[in-house]
């Protein structure tokens, strides 16, 4: 074997090995969903089921509590993502392009929350939303997290890189700042919006601690809340729990596969160096 051929074979073997070990837990989860109630944790260990049964997947997909949780969370995640992109990109544009009194102060004010640990405000946020009568509504899940310093910062970095010349031409033609934002900046924001939109979507979809604190209404149970309390609520039906976990992970995995190249590039735009 020539050294070059050897190197390529070694690379290929490594690729397969890494892929298998990284994806093993996920594959095992999906496959455990096909196993019977007592088969998931059976000794000796078996990767594949004796018989592929679809009952778990069918049962959980028909379970009204599960489908409702999926639907409610999905709707919430979409609204949350859209709202946070609007709110944060508006502020990002103002900080990137406009001059105004107190800009420095408001800049620090908007970026500082990035450094406040969630726990330091979790308890008092809970008291605030209780006072506002927001408990057990969709609003309590969506609104508190919409404004995000990290997201605003990221989009602003991107806007700073836009050429000023086009904008000045538009200003001379009498366009207002709002028109410039809507007609020049927004149409070109696909890349940062996809990256930040996915981050928002994932944060909402995967949220656990905030929902278990603020939601007790079964009609609004979030998907991770459903899965996290599945064991205490329904006993150890592992096969079904694995089927549910697999289905609950599918939307995020699909999202990643569709927008995969944006994420990889997004890491570069963010300019962490």
């Amino acid at each position: 074997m020539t050294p070059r051929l050897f190197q390529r074979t070694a690379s290929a073997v490594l690729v397969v090995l890494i892929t298998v070990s990284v994806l093993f837990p996920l594959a095992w989860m999906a496959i455990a969903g096909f196993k019977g109630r007592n088969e998931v944790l059976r000794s000796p260990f078996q990767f594949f089921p004796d018989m592929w049964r679809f009952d778990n997947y069918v049962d959980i997909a028909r379970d009204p509590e599960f489908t409702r949780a999926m639907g409610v969370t999905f709707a919430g995640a979409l609204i949350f993502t859209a709202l946070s992109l609007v709110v944060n990109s508006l502020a990002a544009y103002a900080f990137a392009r406009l001059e105004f009194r107190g800009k420095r102060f408001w800049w620090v004010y908007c970026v500082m929350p990035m450094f406040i640990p969630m726990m330091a405000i979790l308890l008092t946020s809970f008291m605030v939303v209780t006072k506002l009568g927001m408990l057990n509504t969709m609003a309590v899940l969506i609104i508190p997290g919409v404004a995000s310093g990290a997201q605003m910062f990221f989009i602003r970095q991107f806007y700073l890189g836009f050429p000023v010349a086009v904008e000045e031409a538009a200003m001379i033609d009498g366009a207002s700042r709002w028109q410039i934002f809507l007609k020049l900046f927004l149409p070109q924001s696909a890349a940062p919006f996809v990256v930040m939109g996915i981050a928002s979507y994932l944060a909402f979809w995967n949220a656990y601690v905030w929902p278990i604190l603020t939601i007790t209404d079964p009609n609004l149970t979030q998907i991770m809340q459903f899965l996290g309390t599945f064991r205490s609520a329904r006993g150890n039906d592992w096969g079904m729990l694995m089927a549910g976990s697999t289905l609950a992970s599918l939307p995020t995995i699909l999202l990643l596969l569709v927008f995969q190249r944006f994420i990889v590039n997004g890491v570069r735009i963010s300019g962490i160096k």
Partner: protein
Amino acid sequence: MALTPTLAPGPQTADAGRSARGRRGRVKTPPHRRDNRTAYLMIAPMVILLGIFVMWPLVYSVYLSTYEINFYRGSTFVGLQFYRYVLESPDFWHSIVVGLYYSALTVPAMIIIALLLASFIKTLSRRAAAFMKTTVYLPTVVSTVVASVLFVLIYQDEGVANWLLSLISFGPVNWLNDPQLALPAIAVPGIWLGFGLTTLILLAALLDIPESYYEQAALDGAGFFARLWYVTLPLLKNVLLYLFVTGFTLAIQMIDLPLIMTNGGPSEATNTPNLYIFNTFRDVTPYATSYSLTASLLLFVVIGAISAVVFRLVRSDKAIDG
């Protein structure tokens, strides 16, 4: 508040210098060029939302931590009493130790794995690299809850972990019920969930190192490890420190994994700071609210102090220009 800060740009962002220059240059902007009204309208939604759901709760936390809240008798001002209680509580310090131990178990391992993977991915062809990037990132989008549930199963007596041990005729081990093993066992899904993004960031940084440096080093007879040690690591210093700081602040705040997998047990071995605070808040004793608020603020101070020290170290030593 639910947003992960991991994608947030670090202190060394490419545009930071330019914006600072721009700001200084624009100080003398004539008043008619200012857009106060438009700007205030544009930042208003963000400013108001942050005010209600971040700033006010923070101020309120600080305020309440100086009161003893009693739902029956009204609140009384107690000054810094609760700070003393928390600081004197062995449970609080124990949870900090658990948090530091968890960070020590996850962050270095994550960065080393990510560095190795990133160096490997860099050598691959375009298509293979794209495939690997997606693979590596996949666990990151899986929720902590799903990972917790999944690893609880993996760690059962009849689970995969014990089956792998039995292959080398060992075990079975009671992973999550052994105080010695429980935290390392929780660290594994922690690493699994976090190393993807770390790898992508390191890969982006690696690709920014000019190939000529490596060619030169190779001409000088440097092998793989020599190149890693003398070329790659010094040039990645800033990224690595950034990853250490963000990794640490996230790791010490870990709550979901131990909440679902062990709920702090066995014998408090996995009671991370946030889990400890969360559980004291749900406690029914009258002091619990103020106590947990105070503990959360002190945790903020601990994290802030450690991060500040590390960032100071970064700043004090300028990067070598790539």
